[in-house]
């Protein structure tokens, strides 16, 4: 079937399909075939779709990014990689969409924690993956999910069991090393009941144009606790489409910290379904400079009673950058006593920067506490004068206030080495010069 949205990707990729991981598994092959069919019909999301109205992805169709189906990795600059690797963390490295056992460091991982490349996991424990792949997200969500399902080359599988409380975080580094490469990965994270972990997804790349498509499905069991960080520092020519889709069991706690700093065009979806008395916290910071377009799309779905959700996304936009925030909170009929708060604050530093914010509350229960707030504005002149009256010159006062605005989100990071790295990354990309972290 051919429509106006027809994509040339399916034809271009047809040779690589037989080489993808898990093709010997009939269930996965079927899922991939269906996804391919769906993507062939739909093409990439279009502006007339409500969830994509602010983000034009047609540039991806104009270019052609190619998946790397064979696992042979190219040259990886180890020193460069090290600059993104956290100390005191287990480290998993995926290069151009493939798990690299050589670059990963998993020594001393407790027995109750299983960490494997997705391709390996599909060979070794396909029956487990069958129960989780495309269970937290459906290919109907949007066509990037179909795209990812059809063509993911590898990814990661993480499983915590036996009440394991992981004392060190696991860092997952996605690195893109080649011009025009498609890095399509699928990650599944499972926390059994009463387990706890911190996992850091990091996206970086060489100074090239490339496409990252990263879908992460997360299952947080009863009374389990997951803090998931996303540090998106892609190259400024790159395209990034990432989604984190979460299912929380009752009393499960999930915190997400989303730092969207890089890429020319970036979209992140963070969706979570809460059960009875589950809690979630979604934090986000996007820094847009030059012509960056950064879109964050969140959905918090309260399905049962007594759930708590807190959300705060902040954006700093300079130059001709555009930031998009779409936040949806759904409170189902049975989700009585839900307590939910969603806020989005934007700081515009130039006349040509733009912020689009669309908070949506859909409440079907009658005994709930839900609030939301949005601000789009400039620096407060009273604050600038106050600092000036305390000997600070105007330019520095503006820098301090801008940095302080953004830093509120960085300060929520509890892992010290990660806090430092994110602060450095934020400063590196900060619109103004002369910004100093001693201000904090």
């Amino acid at each position, binding site marked *: 079937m051919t429509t106006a949205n027809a994509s040339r990707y399916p034809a271009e990729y047809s040779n690589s399909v037989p080489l993808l991981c898990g093709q010997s598994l009939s269930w996965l092959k079927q899922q991939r075939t269906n996804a391919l069919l769906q993507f062939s019909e739909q093409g990439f999301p279009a502006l007339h779709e409500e969830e994509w109205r602010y983000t034009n992805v047609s540039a991806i169709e104009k270019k052609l990014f190619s998946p790397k189906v064979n696992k042979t990795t190219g040259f990886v600059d180890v020193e460069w990689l090290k600059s993104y690797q956290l100390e005191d963390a287990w480290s998993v490295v995926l290069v151009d969409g493939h798990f690299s056992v050589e670059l990963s460091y998993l020594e001393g991982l407790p027995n109750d924690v299983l960490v494997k490349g997705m391709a390996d996991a599909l060979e070794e424990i396909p029956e487990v993956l069958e129960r989780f792949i495309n269970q937290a997200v459906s290919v109907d969500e949007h066509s990037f999910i179909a795209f990812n399902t059809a063509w993911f080359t590898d990814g990661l599988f993480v499983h915590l069991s036996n009440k394991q409380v992981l004392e060190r975080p696991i860092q997952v580094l996605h690195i893109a090393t080649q011009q025009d490469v498609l890095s399509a990965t699928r990650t599944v994270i499972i926390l059994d009941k009463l387990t706890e972990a911190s996992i850091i997804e990091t996206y970086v790349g060489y100074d090239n144009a490339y496409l990252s498509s990263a879908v992460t499905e997360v299952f947080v069991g009863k009374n389990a606790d997951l803090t998931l960080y996303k540090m998106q520092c892609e190259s400024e020519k790159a395209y990034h489409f990432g989604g984190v889709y979460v299912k929380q069991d009752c009393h499960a706690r999930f915190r997400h910290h989303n730092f969207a700093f890089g890429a020319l065009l970036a979209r992140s979806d963070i969706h979570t379904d809460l059960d009875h008395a589950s809690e979630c916290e979604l934090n986000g910071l996007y820094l847009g400079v030059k012509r960056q377009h950064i879109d964050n799309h969140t959905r918090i779905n309260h399905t049962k009673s007594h759930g708590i959700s807190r959300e705060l996304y902040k954006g700093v936009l300079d130059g001709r950058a555009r930031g998009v925030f779409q936040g949806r909170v759904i409170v189902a009929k049975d989700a009585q006593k839900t307590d939910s708060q969603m806020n989005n604050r934007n700081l515009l530093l130039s006349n040509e920067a733009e912020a689009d914010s669309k908070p949506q509350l859909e409440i079907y229960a009658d005994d709930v506490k839900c609030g939301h707030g949005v601000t789009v504005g400039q620096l407060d002149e009273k604050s600038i004068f*106050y600092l000036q009256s305390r000997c600070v010159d105007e330019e520095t006062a503006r820098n301090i206030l801008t940095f302080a605005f953004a830093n509120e989100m960085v300060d929520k990071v509890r892992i010290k080495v990660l806090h430092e790295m994110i602060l450095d990354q934020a400063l590196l990309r900060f619109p103004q010069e002369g910004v100093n972290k*001693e201000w904090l």
Partner: protein
Amino acid sequence: MLSIKNLHVSVGDKPILKGINLEINAGEIHAIMGPNGSGKSTLSHILSGKSGYTVTEGSVTYQGKELLEMPPEIRAREGVFLAFQYPVEIPGVSNIYLLKAALNSIRKHHGQSEVDAMDFLTLVKGKVRLLEMDEKFLYRAVNEGFSGGEKKRNEILQMAILEPKLCILDETDSGLDIDALKIVSEGVNSLRSTDRAFVMVTHYQRLLDYIKPDYVHVLANGQIVKSGGAELALELEEKGYSWLEDNQVAA
């Protein structure tokens, strides 16, 4: 130290100050009193360099320099300090950082080296005790979540550390209960010295029970309608501002 001559100030087309003359010498405490809308706050804002005002006539000389030509931060580095009526909350910037940055800017302005970290901490902690503040305030964001009284104390703490030459206190007593008023006043009194001057802008006489002024000036309709000693404040308390406003109209 400060010489205000025939100062006329407007906001937009509206004249607010209509010919203020005031001489303030080192060591003196001047109280500027007056009813709401008399131009008291405009006077403190214009001295500290807040934007939004137009000087249409007159001059202000501070230590022999044209004050009105300096940007606010230069005035502050030159020793002019405004204690705000409504101190601003600055989330994300720690109180102690701002204190240190401000002190170092002043030192740099005067060609001095940065303050030693240990000396600074000793200095700050001493002043914190003087103002009966909790040391935790130092590490919190500037004024964020502070009560009205805590904010005012924080202003005086900044003043105590920066050791300005000219202290302008804008309605410092507003929003203070009697205990906080005493602490703030003791803080101010401890800073009285022969080389420092104070301008206290206040609506009520109450603050002057604790900080005794050398001179009291009454501002009404943008002009100083009466000047006198500390006893003038008491007279005002008794008779109200209408007494002078009526006089002015009659004159």
